[in-house]
């Protein structure tokens, strides 16, 4: 019984890791006022890049770096179109998703079904990993898990307590007043979109090089969209994102737990998506007045407009 609990909890945290990474990125991006619906596509780009580079070089760290660069680069398109050209962020984000899924399908095709032999392994944390039950659940993971937690805390601290964080938040709340303070809104927003994209890339890298160690077309399976829902659920707070992401990690694991009970697998596969709707629904019921969404989210901003 103890083994089962440990393994379920461990797998929950692993399944939640890419969701957490993606959500942190989207929180940063949306806090600056830009809605990025391209997460699904950017994640796919990250996943395919990480896989190919790891496969070719034999070093998963190179794969991770390449994923960050590639996903930041493709996010630049969204930044340019939605910030410089003030286009509809919804349409631009959708285009980015199509583009990302398309390109990842094209360049990844020769690598479908090839297994990855190199992996990052687990990094047990000395002393802590030896605590019974808690040790193996929380302190015996691959680097992605620790990275996600540390980045969530770092992003929260930056957004809430640093000058940079204030600049980002005010870019999302009142760009005109912010610009009057001599702060370059475009530069802030560009960086937030690009850094947010890099986080999605990290999430993708985790999927293809650590979570499943293989590449298949469409392996992101809607996680990018779940990330966007989690951003709302987390009320744009990276710490709350930790809770949301691992809750959803649990739902992904629940699918496999319930399968032996004779519930049709297609029904179980609906669970994460139904839960997403449910979570938005509950969120709407309890918090609709103080949702605290960035005031200028998804509103194009043009310099010098009055």
């Amino acid at each position, binding site marked *: 019984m103890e083994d089962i609990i440990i393994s379920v909890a461990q797998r929950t945290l692993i399944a939640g890791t890419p969701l957490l990474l993606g959500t942190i990125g989207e929180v940063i991006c949306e806090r600056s006022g830009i809605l990025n*619906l391209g997460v699904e*596509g950017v994640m796919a780009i990250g996943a395919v890049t990480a896989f190919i580079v790891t496969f070719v070089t034999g070093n998963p760290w190179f794969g991770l770096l390449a994923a960050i660069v590639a996903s930041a680069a493709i996010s630049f*398109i969204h930044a340019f*179109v939605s910030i410089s*050209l*003030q*286009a*509809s962020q*919804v*349409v*631009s984000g*959708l*285009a*980015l*998703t*199509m*583009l*990302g*899924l*398309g*390109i*990842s*399908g*094209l*360049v990844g*095709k020769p690598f479908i079904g090839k297994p990855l032999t190199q992996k990052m392994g687990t990094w047990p944390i000395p002393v802590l990993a030896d605590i019974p039950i808690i040790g193996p659940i929380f302190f015996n993971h691959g680097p992605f898990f620790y990275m996600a937690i540390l980045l969530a805390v770092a992003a929260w601290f930056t957004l809430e307590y640093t000058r940079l964080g204030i600049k980002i938040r005010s870019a999302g709340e009142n760009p005109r007043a912010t610009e009057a303070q001599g702060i370059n809104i475009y530069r802030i927003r560009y960086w937030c979109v690009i850094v947010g994209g890099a986080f999605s890339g990290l999430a993708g890298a985790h999927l293809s090089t650590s979570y499943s160690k293989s590449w298949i*077309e*469409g392996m992101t399976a*809607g996680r990018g*969209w779940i990330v*966007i*829902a989690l951003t*709302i659920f987390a009320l744009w707070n990276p710490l709350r994102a930790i809770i949301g992401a691992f809750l959803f990690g649990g739902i992904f694991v629940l699918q496999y737990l319930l399968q032996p009970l004779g519930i*049709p697998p*297609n*029904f179980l*596969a*609906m669970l994460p*998506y*139904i839960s*997403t*709707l449910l979570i*938005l*629904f509950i969120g*709407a*019921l309890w918090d*609709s007045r103080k949702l605290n969404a960035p005031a200028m989210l998804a509103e194009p901003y*043009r310099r010098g407009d009055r």
Partner: protein
Amino acid sequence: MLKIKVTDRIDILPRHSFLSLVFSLAAGLLAISLIFLFSGVNPLYAIAKIFSGSFGSMYGLKETVTKAIPLILIAGGLTLAFRAKFWNIGAESQLLMGAIFGTWVGLNWGPHLPAAIIVPLMFLAGFIGGALWGLIPAILKIKFSINEVISTLMMNYICNEFMTLLIVGPWRGKTKFGFPYTDDLPLSAILSLIPGSRIHYATLLVAVVTVIMLGIAVYKTRFGYEVRVIGENPDAAKYSGIDFFKTTLIIMAISGGAAGLAGIGEVAGIHHYLSYPESISSGYGYTAIIVAWLAKLNPFYVILSAFFFAGILVGGDAIQISLGLPAATVQIFNGTLLVFLIMGDFFLKNQLTFQWRPKRN
């Protein structure tokens, strides 16, 4: 240093719109060529193959018209939703729900009824299926302010699994040797084709009539005016007494219903039974988003832009076979063209003036 000044373009002439469209498409094709080049595919060969595969032969043309049918219907409905800034990304599953509802009617009532009765009933059921599935995100948005992009997308995933659940489970056909398909529709429920093609002309007719009616509704009726006001200025809409909830419900019933018509058309015209969702719809619901955008949300233009994108779908199939490219290649076309179309809108709406100022030392 070079200074770029952006000002609103005051007089947008048809000539400007046309030029921005041509330039966007040309620039988009150039960008697609670059992507192909970097992926080790000869871009000239691939693009030539796509357009010759779709528009270059009689067979290709017939297939293009066949695939334009669902696109016309879905994109027509989407123009309405997008005008009201209701971002319905769920047409894919509204199509599938239409297919499910319509097929149920066809399978259960078809054997006892003549074609003249069962076919309209199936289309009605298809419309209702798509409309009901489309109403859910509308209610969620207006009553619970749940973002419709996420809800419609989640419903796509849910419907995919639901449909698979049906065909592997209770709806699996007795005549299909255990394959996950429903039984064939009875003969009276199957649409006839233009000989030598797969063009189910009944659906084509429904599609053309639908977009013409939508065009009239958008430009000539009070309802069309309300849709525009809701999209452009929701606050004004509230003060001028437009019933937000009711209008959004109607918009999504029509948008979802049109996709549902496309769904039952595909089943009754081409497949004749339900199978996996991916084979009933090859992403029509997503492609239609760009069809609607290319048509500048004008229902009349949808016919032309659906024909163009149907060509890309058919050509995409052709290069999958001849170049061994994955199905996702079409997504590259869609994504890139969409990016360039919205870029084109910027240059259409704004005037750029370049000023060269020598640097002061």
